[in-house]
């Protein structure tokens, strides 16, 4: 791994004609250049497709979520129309930890795929819940728009009103560990 060549911003990576632009690179004139510092990786070139050159950041790959990125975050406020949450980490297991939380919104219609009319925000999330969601758009000037309308998406960790840890017992309910108290959530299917 340490044998990999390290590219620096501004370093020429060859003509565009024979290379494909990948992450961490950019094109200037007819040449491909590095735009971040990190190990350079080249995909296998085939007869018709030129190799794809990309540079990875030494620490995780992403700095910000992109459309389609799975994110983990905590619900910060809810109202009848939407739930606000702070994105804390990127990736379905949150491997990329963010230095600062990013504001995001799950709109009521994006909570579930089915029975959208029946779903309510309070019946799906409570402040403090840890949710897994996927970014569906860059959203408004402040918040990303995210969706939990998929089985493996939704609440992954929750604490009961009584302050006890809960575990999912169905697709719509959590239950206190060693307790009987149940609370309604949009539960993320165990993967």
């Amino acid at each position, binding site marked *: 791994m340490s044998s990999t060549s390290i590219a620096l911003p501004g370093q020429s990576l060859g003509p*565009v004609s024979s290379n494909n632009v*990948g992450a961490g*690179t*950019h*094109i200037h004139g007819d040449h491909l250049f590095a735009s971040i510092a990190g190990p350079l990786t080249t995909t296998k070139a085939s007869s018709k497709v030129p190799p794809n050159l990309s540079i990875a950041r030494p620490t995780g790959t992403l700095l910000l979520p*992109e459309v389609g990125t799975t994110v983990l975050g905590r619900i910060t406020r809810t109202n009848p129309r939407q739930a606000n949450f702070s994105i804390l980490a990127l990736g379905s297991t949150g491997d990329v930890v963010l230095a600062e939380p990013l504001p995001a919104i799950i709109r009521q219609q994006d909570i579930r795929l089915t029975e959208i009319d029946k779903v309510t925000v309070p019946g799906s999330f409570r402040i403090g819940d840890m949710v897994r969601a996927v970014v*569906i*758009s*860059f959203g408004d000037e402040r918040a990303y728009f995210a*969706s939990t309308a998929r089985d493996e998406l939704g609440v992954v960790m929750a604490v009961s009103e009584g302050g006890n840890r809960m575990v999912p017992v169905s697709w719509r309910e959590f239950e206190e560990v060693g307790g009987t108290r149940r609370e309604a959530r949009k539960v993320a299917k165990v993967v």
Partner: protein
Amino acid sequence: MAPYTGIPLSPAELSYLHTSLSQDPPIRPDGRSPTQFRPLVAETDILPSTNGSARICFPDGTEAIVGVKAEVEKTRAAGQDVIRGGEGVLGLGRGGGRDVDDEEMEDGEGNAVKSGRGRDEWVEIAIELPALLADAGLKDTLWINNRFHWRLYIDILLLSQPLSYPLPLLSLTTHLALLSTRLPALISEQDEDPLFNDDWEASTPLYPRHTNPSSSVQQHHIKPPITLLVMTVGPAILFDPSADELAVADAVLALSVAQQLPTDATSKSSDQAPSFKLIALRTVDPPSRLTAGGVPNTLNTTTTTTTSSGTSGTMGSSQKKPTAGEVLAIRERDQGTSVWRPPRGGVSRAVVGRMIKAVVERGGVGWEVMEGLAGVET
């Protein structure tokens, strides 16, 4: 500078403007030639209570007023006599006053070297204009005698919201105001408390209008420097760019020029166009860098930003979208050819050279502007 936002132009308009300005010759929205300035309103001596004043109004509505006021001040020379003894007092720390005491050590003996007696702090200016203070001549004319000097207060007032970089407007106005500034004639002798002739007619201009070779050294024929805004788009170099033009600039420079002091006093610098020298230059962050890039047609079907809570919310549609990687590739390959993309990188040295040349060369833009301003009726 606060980020310049609120550019009213769409990516399409920006793209169009950029291409038309990149033509040779460039096609400017208002049909000007590259070196042509927009007509401006200028007047001087508008403030009777000042020693000199001017007002300039650009067609884009930006307007500035400058007032110059001169006051007699006792030259600070604390402990000067003691210092004569040869043991110097040197400042460590703030107290600029202290520092200049050393200066007294050199010319304190009363030898008649005139230059280098002026001090920066004799000119108090509201906004730091590049190189105004660099002009030693100005400061020296403020010297009255060993004990007294003029203090010049230059108050600059920008009357309007700056639509673009305001420095040129301010410098031109200041230039005019200084040209129109007059100081009362001195009638007292040597180092005694100065007495002045209250006859305004007898007063001497800070910057004599026309040069007469016979005049002594203390009068210098240099006009106050001016600062001009120059921008490049592709190959073109444009002067006095409008706010719209700046929105597509590749690079913007603010250049300050002053007249070249004739190397030998006998040269007929009066009849031929005086040469100009560059005395300050700085790049200005072009607002174009903050403009929004366009979306290449290939991506148009799926917009990546939905400020309006459209149907794009559902998972279904987001499946169709190209991966982030593909988006990047498409945008990069386009390189702003088919749609507008904010400029990247800087400006090449060669272009800078050309810009400088265009300003300072004999009969260049710098000369034109100064002539134009000299023509302003007072």
